[in-house]
Structures are given as structure tokens and as C-alpha cells.
């Protein structure tokens, strides 16, 4: 019998360096947008087109993802005068963006279209709160499958992931203070980000002293809920040459890679091991790089723990040493490999992953939108002074990694490099 864990998941490598992200666009990260998801999505895609220097006629593909809490591609495309040769709207949240970038590459490669805009538009605070209220589902009758989830008060992301987080502490001696450092560090980064919803610095003690939501998660171990539209544009490296900014070149993509027992991942292996353990077998060989080559990471921080578990299982440190890695200064601005330099989901805003991709594109362009003065050439004159209200550009960024999380059992990833 072939064990699920032994299946060779490596794929063809010849698309390495052939595609790029050429445009990024955002609305503000707010609570109470006062607008429809259609308005948010349209603004984000338009901003990404302007960023890339592309017109409606230059974009002929569109992808989006949502939990049916958004506005679908044909509407957003139509309002912007885009005529898609290809579009698809998929179900899902975290881990979707890297997967959709891979799909965009695939459909362009198949000749179905040439340039794809990908967006996520959500009123994640003022309309559908992913982690907050439970929505209509919380009061629906218990079905055969929801008896063993909702019937046990096991429904929100925090409630479904806490077992994996707790077991990591048990298996490896990871401490609450080590994990809280993730929030403290991301809050430092956010204090240098004019767009961040939470832009005040917090300490490890602030995290530990915040009220308990579901052990081991304090309030400040959990990400913010916000309203926002975010978008990126993917095209071939040849077309990227005509765009306004240097391209962020895609080296490798992992899309919604799963642990065994994707139906209920608790059944398989140590639950303190997450999908990245399998995803790394695709990510690094296809990129021709390893963790040691990466300058900046964007490890999905729905919770402080998710950042740690992914960095560990993608091999940025030894298994079990994630607690040390996230608290020893490595991932702080000025450290050896900063993580989520925008403040991520814990501080900047909640987009199901796109804002961390946008941040890494800007890091590779050497054009992060921090508080540094803008020079005569229209670009920021980065000071590398990472104190509060200062710079968040990392020096000499050549390679970035995005590690996207859906659940402990399912994740995506992407490596980008400077042109």
C-alpha cells in the first residue's frame, strides 16, 4: 500500500522565471467601508491596472476567490470595460492567492488568455465576519457532519486550529511568549505602514495579557477583521517588460497542497506538522532555491501560530524550533529574514493572503510605501531606520517567499525573485 505521504508531488519546472506579477492594487484597510464589495473589487483592480500601466484592453483574464461574500469577476470586469477571454471565481479564503497565481500561469500557458487580474473584495468586518459571529450557519440544524464540529462548539478558525497549536507546545515545549513575539514583531512593522489598520506597537506582555479567546489563543494572537479590496496582475515575462515597474518574477508555486486525510486532518500524523511539510517538496525544487536563499518571508498570520508553523515546516528552521525562530529577532525588520513587513493580517488588514503578496512585490521593487520621503524621481528615499514611523524597506531584496494558510492540513506557497 502506498502511504499518502510518499506520493511524489514534484512537478515540471520549466515555467520557473517565465511569469511575473506586474501590478498591485489596494483600497484602504478599514472597518466600515460604506461600499459594496463590487466597489471595493473594482477600485482594487483599477489600481492594479494603473500600477502596471495597463488599460482595460490589456487585461483579458480574471480570477477571484471568496466565501460567497464577494462580487464575481464578470461584474467587476464589465464595470471596468474588461472583456475576459477567461474568468473563474473560486470558493475559499486563505491559501487561495498562491494557488490562483499558479492557475493564471496555467491558463496563459494554455493559450486561453494573456494577462490575468486576481482580486479579493470583502467587507470582512462590516458584512461577513469570518471568525466572528458564525453567521447563519451557527443556527442551522446539526447535520450528520456538523454534529462533530458545530455540535461541539467547534466552528471558527481558532476553534478548529487550536488543537494543532496546543499539540505543538506539548511536542516541542513552545511557550506562549515565543509565539506572542509574532504579534509584537508584526506590530513593529505595521507602525511603519501608513495603511495598517492596527499601527500601534504592542509588546509580548500585551499579547499575553489580552483576554483568552480559545486556548492557546489570546485576542492579540488573532488577526484583525477589515473591509478591503486587493488585486494583483499576472502576465508573461515578455509582456511584463512593457509594464511600468520592474516585474516580480514567479519562480515556483504550490497550490492548496494538503496533508493526508484532507477530509479531517487530525487523523493523520503528528498534528503539530502542517501542510507545508508536503508543500516544501514542490516549492524548493521547482524554484531551484532553498530557504537559505530567501530574504523576506510573508508567512500567513491568521494567528501568531500559523506564521510559526509554516516557517518551520517549509524549512526556515528545524522542526520544533519555530518558537525560537519567531522570537529570536530573525523575522524583525533589520533581522536576517524579516516576515510580513507590512504587519500582515495581525495588523495591516485581513484579505485572505493577497496583501502579503503585494508587500513582497513592493519589497522586490525596492518601493515599499512607508514613511520615508519621496525623492524627485517619485520613489521613496529609504532610510533603513526601522524605528516607529520610519522605514520598512529591506535592503537588497532578491528573493521572497509567501506561505499561504487555509487550515493546518492545507496550504499554498510562492517564491518570487527580482528580475
Amino acid at each position, binding site marked *: *500500500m502506498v*502511504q499518502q*505521504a510518499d506520493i511524489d508531488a514534484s512537478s515540471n519546472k520549466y515555467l520557473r522565471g517565465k511569469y511575473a506579477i506586474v501590478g498591485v492594487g489596494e483600497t484602504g484597510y478599514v472597518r466600515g467601508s460604506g461600499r459594496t464589495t463590487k466597489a471595493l473589487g473594482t477600485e482594487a483592480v483599477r489600481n492594479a491596472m494603473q500600477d502596471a500601466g495597463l488599460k482595460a484592453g490589456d487585461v483579458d483574464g480574471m480570477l477571484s476567490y471568496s466565501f460567497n461574500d464577494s462580487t464575481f469577476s464578470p461584474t467587476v470586469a464589465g464595470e471596468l470595460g474588461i472583456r475576459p477571454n477567461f474568468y473563474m471565481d473560486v470558493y475559499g479564503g486563505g491559501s487561495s492567492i498562491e494557488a490562483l497565481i499558479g492557475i493564471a500561469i496555467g491558463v496563459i500557458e494554455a493559450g486561453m488568455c494573456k494577462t490575468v487580474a486576481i482580486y479579493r473584495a470583502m467587507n470582512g468586518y462590516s458584512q461577513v465576519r469570518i*471568525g*466572528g*459571529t*458564525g453567521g447563519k450557519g*451557527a*443556527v442551522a*440544524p*446539526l*447535520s*450528520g*457532519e456538523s*454534529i*462533530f*464540529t*458545530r*455540535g*461541539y*462548539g*467547534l*466552528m*471558527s478558525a*481558532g*476553534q478548529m486550529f*487550536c*488543537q*494543532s497549536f*496546543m*499539540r505543538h*507546545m*506539548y511536542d516541542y515545549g513552545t*511557550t*506562549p511568549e515565543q509565539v506572542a513575539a509574532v504579534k509584537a514583531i508584526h506590530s513593529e512593522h505595521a507602525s511603519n505602514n501608513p495603511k495598517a489598520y492596527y499601527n500601534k506597537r504592542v509588546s509580548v506582555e500585551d499579547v*499575553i495579557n489580552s*483576554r*483568552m*479567546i*480559545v*486556548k*492557546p489563543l489570546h485576542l492579540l494572537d488573532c488577526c484583525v477583521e477589515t473591509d478591503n479590496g486587493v488585486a494583483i496582475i499576472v502576465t508573461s515575462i515578455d509582456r511584463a517588460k512593457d509594464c511600468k515597474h520592474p516585474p516580480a518574477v514567479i519562480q515556483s508555486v504550490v497550490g492548496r497542497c494538503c496533508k*493526508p*486525510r484532507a*477530509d*479531517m486532518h*487530525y*487523523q*493523520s*500524523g*503528528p*498534528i503539530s506538522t502542517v501542510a507545508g511539510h508536503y508543500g516544501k517538496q514542490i516549492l524548493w525544487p521547482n524554484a531551484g532555491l532553498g530557504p537559505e536563499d530567501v530574504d523576506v518571508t510573508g508567512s500567513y498570520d491568521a494567528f501568531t501560530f500559523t506564521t510559526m508553523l509554516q516557517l518551520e515546516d517549509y524549512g526556515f528552521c528545524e522542526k520544533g524550533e519555530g518558537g525560537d525562530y519567531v522570537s529570536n529577532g530573525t523575522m524583525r525588520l533589520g533581522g536576517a529574514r524579516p516576515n510580513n513587513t507590512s504587519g500582515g493580517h495581525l495588523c495591516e488588514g485581513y484579505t485572505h493572503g493577497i496583501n502579503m503578496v503585494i508587500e513582497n512585490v513592493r519589497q522586490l521593487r525596492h518601493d515599499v510605501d512607508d514613511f520615508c520621503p519621496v525623492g524627485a524621481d517619485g520613489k521613496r528615499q529609504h532610510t533603513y531606520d526601522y524605528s516607529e514611523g520610519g522605514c520598512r524597506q529591506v535592503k537588497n531584496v532578491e528573493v521572497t517567499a509567501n506561505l499561504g494558510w487555509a487550515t493546518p492540513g492545507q496550504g499554498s506557497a510562492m517564491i518570487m525573485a527580482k528580475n
Partner: protein
Amino acid sequence: MTFPNEYLGMPVKVGELDHENREFYSYCAKHDLHLQKCNDCDLLRYPATTACPFCSSPDATWTSVEGKGTLYSYGEVHHAIQGAFRKHTPYMLLLVELDTQKGQPGEFDGIRMTSNLVTAEGELAPPELVKQVGIGTRLKIIYKDVDENVSIPLFAIDEDAEQPEKPWRYAIE
């Protein structure tokens, strides 16, 4: 015998087409835990499925399993999002590893049931009981009847079992 026809105020409707879960909960209603055992690879599985997660076989036999195990991991909900649970915080989310088939098919695999910690009478555990339970605690299955075809499987401290001196709990109480 009369039934409440609900659980914690939540109505329960196991779909007519959901044959596997109907069967699973009907054994629970008899207070006799049964899991599907694959007719081809002989492995038990949880939850109820339409094929074998280990060998894809569609053929299985419902097999009696002792409802005893060890707490493998847990969460403790202090901020409930479902109305049914708000008056019961803190409540404990259990991941119980059954003694049956522990360490199979892989060394670190096991049959791990999600559940809540309850008293011997099947009521959600009060805070002082929650504090006694951690990774390593020995647990046994308890049922809460919903109707003649469905009971909810829950877990209580196994008073007859040898318990660890100090089960592992999160560092901050």
C-alpha cells in the same frame, strides 16, 4: 422513553441520503460505539466515510470499538461564538485518541475523535473539572440522547483508569 429531539437547544437532522452518518449515530443511540472497518485493508476509520481513506475500498463492516482513549490535544473556549455554548464557557474542545488502532497505519496516526468534555452525567464540564484535564488524561465515551436514532458522543474522565499524575496543560491558567 421521551427524547429531547435537540442538543443544547440545537435541532438535529441527519440527512436521509447521509447513510454513513445515519448508521454511525444510530449505533451511538444504542450507546455502542461502532466504526467502519475496511473489508480490504482491515483498518478502522473516523469519521464515517463513503470509502476507505487508506485503500479507497467502498466495502466496510460496522465494527464495535471500545470508547476509551487518551486526550491527544485540546482547546479551551473562553469566547464562544455560538449562542448554544455561551453559557457554558469555558468549554473544552477535545481531540481524543482512541486506544483502538493507536499508531496505525503510520507511527504517528490514530483514530482521533473531536468532542467536548462532560461530566459523568453528560453535561458540559464546569470550570473546576476543565482544569483537571489535559493531554494524557484518560477518557471514556458518554452519550447524550437526542432521539431514538441519534445520540451525541461525548467524553468524560475515566474514573476507573489509571490517570497521569499531572496531565499536560497550557502554561497559563
